[in-house]
């Protein structure tokens, strides 16, 4: 139809979908529409795509990594080209002369066994073990900072919304917007500059690393205290850079929640202000922030790279920069993949939590008619 607008086309597509097949498709559809199934399918797809991207990224790079490695070995190790070539291809664990399709399949097969190959530099060390050795520290710092900022930001946002247009609200909201607009690494630099160098309040060199040399890892109070001492600076930065986001989001979510009719009805029912604030306003306002929390977690894992670099904190970020400096491609690949998985897990948890917290999700009633 010549004059059919795209909207008509949509209608038509929907109409034609009503084939005899649709009943059978309906069951698959019902399963597919289950939130958990969908989330898991999405997670698998994401991991697959991420690994594919990284696989081809490295093969698309100008100048093959093997050639680079051969050059390097020839220069540094005084090897002959043949020796260097042999050593280099051994490092890659995959035959770079094989057709790309075959390499790709092997890569995926290894991936399915959680085998990400070996590091270029520390021979025999698997990428998985390298990433797993640093990931917990990042997750610890990021998680703690984010959680603290979430809890305090929500409190402050709630108070600011309740006292809207008061001096307190103006101070809190402005501070929130200032601090969340400044890039995290600049805040980290400012902390170092002001409190570490100029005022010398912080023993910044001692605070480096994930824990002090000579400490025995374990659940002793001393060790845990030491952990927090070393993670204090990254945690503060993650805290500072996110608290603004939570203040502003919670403030507007609370303002919206306060406008809801059911809050007025709750007041008419004579409920106490405390009960209304917690069960009718606060709770409903926090709900949408839960999924925002997961997205923030994803962004912060990425942002952690520079923060760790600045504070010399032994996490994924520091390791990534090291791998980049050394052109250790398998490690780079592994870190992208593992951080993606971390984000996916955070998303999954948030989705599940959200559908548990909000009865409207997952328990949806019948669809309405006309």
């Amino acid at each position: 139809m010549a004059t059919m607008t795209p909207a008509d086309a949509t209608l038509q597509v929907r109409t034609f979908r009503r084939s005899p097949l649709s009943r059978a498709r309906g069951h698959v559809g019902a399963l597919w529409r289950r939130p958990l199934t969908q989330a898991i399918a999405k997670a698998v797809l994401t991991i697959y795509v991420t690994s594919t991207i990284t696989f081809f990224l490295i093969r698309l790079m100008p100048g093959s990594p093997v050639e680079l490695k051969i050059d390097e070995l020839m220069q540094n190790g005084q090897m002959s080209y043949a020796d260097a070539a042999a050593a280099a291809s051994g490092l890659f664990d995959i035959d770079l002369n094989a057709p790309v399709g075959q390499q790709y399949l092997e890569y995926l097969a290894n991936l399915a066994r959680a085998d990400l190959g070996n590091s270029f530099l520390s021979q025999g060390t698997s990428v998985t073990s390298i990433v797993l050795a640093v990931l917990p520290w990042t997750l610890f710092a990021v998680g703690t900072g984010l959680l603290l900022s979430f809890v305090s930001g929500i409190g402050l946002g709630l108070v600011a919304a309740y006292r809207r247009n008061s001096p307190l609200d103006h101070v809190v909201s402005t501070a929130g917007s200032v601090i969340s607009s400044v890039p995290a690494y600049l805040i980290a630099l400012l902390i170092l500059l002001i409190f570490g160098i100029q005022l010398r309040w912080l023993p910044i060199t001692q605070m480096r690393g994930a824990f002090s040399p000579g400490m025995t890892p374990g659940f002793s109070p001393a060790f845990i205290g030491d952990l927090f001492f070393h993670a204090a600076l990254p945690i503060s930065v993650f805290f500072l850079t996110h608290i603004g986001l939570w203040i502003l989001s919670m403030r507007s979510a609370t303002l919206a929640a306060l406008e809801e009719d059911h809050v007025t009805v709750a007041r008419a029912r004579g409920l106490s202000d405390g009960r209304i604030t917690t069960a009718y306003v606060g709770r409903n306002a926090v709900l949408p922030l839960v999924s925002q929390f997961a997205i923030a977690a994803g962004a912060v894992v990425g942002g952690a790279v520079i923060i760790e670099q600045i504070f010399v904190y032994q996490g994924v970020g520091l390791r990534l920069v090291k791998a980049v400096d050394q052109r250790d491609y398998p490690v780079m690949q592994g870190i992208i993949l593992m951080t993606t998985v971390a984000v996916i897990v955070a998303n999954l948890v948030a989705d599940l939590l959200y559908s548990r917290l909000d009865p409207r999700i997952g328990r949806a009633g019948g669809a309405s008619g006309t």
Partner: protein
Amino acid sequence: MTTIAAPARRELALPGPVSAVIEFLRVLSRKPVGLAGLFGVVFFLALAYLAPLVVPLQDRVDVTAIYSAPSFGHPLGTDYQGRDVLNQIVYGGQDIITTAILAALFSTLIAITFGAIAATLGGRADVLILAITDVALTIPQLVLLIVIAAIFRPTSFISLAIILALLQWPALLRQIRAQVLSLKERDFVEAARSLDLGLLHIVFREMLPNMRSYIAINFIIAMTYAIYAQAAIMFLGLVPLSGKSWAIMLYFAYNQGALFFKDSFFYLMGPIMAIALFQLSLVWLASGLEDVFNPRLRS
């Protein structure tokens, strides 16, 4: 346009765009944060694009004036080679801002094109575009950017802008798609279809004008992401460092060990404040715009 001899009576006898700008400033002036943001953005744009035309470049090394504190001659102090920091700030804005604008432009174009396609076509195209977007949203973007930058080492600001744009379109695409979807269902769009006004009219006259403000705000937000990300990879030294940019200043200030000289405080503060204040201006301008375009506040 086929509109008749433009609305006969208007309060101001000024051409449309001028009175629109005046109206815009009038509404924005009720929102101090937005106005401050606008001034900040205008100031930095002038600093980056106009000031270099007036101020001569001073990159003479002066070993006698390393890390000097702000003075009349050097209002923001000097660097590790005794060069004037203010002068570097003036010359270091253009590249970083141009890259940010280009990146925002590219990502907005991608988001509008594919977001609108997904929303108007629906069906498989929608499912596919949405799936790609979801995946792209999940990968930690800065990590991927670092790896891409390390592998490709973009040298021109255009290639850097393209890489940045390729990473930051997904969030905007989702929003554009949602907007178009809701606009598509609006009664006035249906009326336009009924009146047989044609697809071009519907898209450019009915839908887009209602998304202008939205796109403008998101363009500004996209710029802040682009500045954040490019300064990050430059700070890590992943981009071949040539030319002048606040981010490259930051890299040198940090990596010349300046951090451990107490005197270098002002040298580091220069680029830090330039980036931070520009970011803040952008965010405030965006939040001001949000209020301006909110019909509730337009009486």
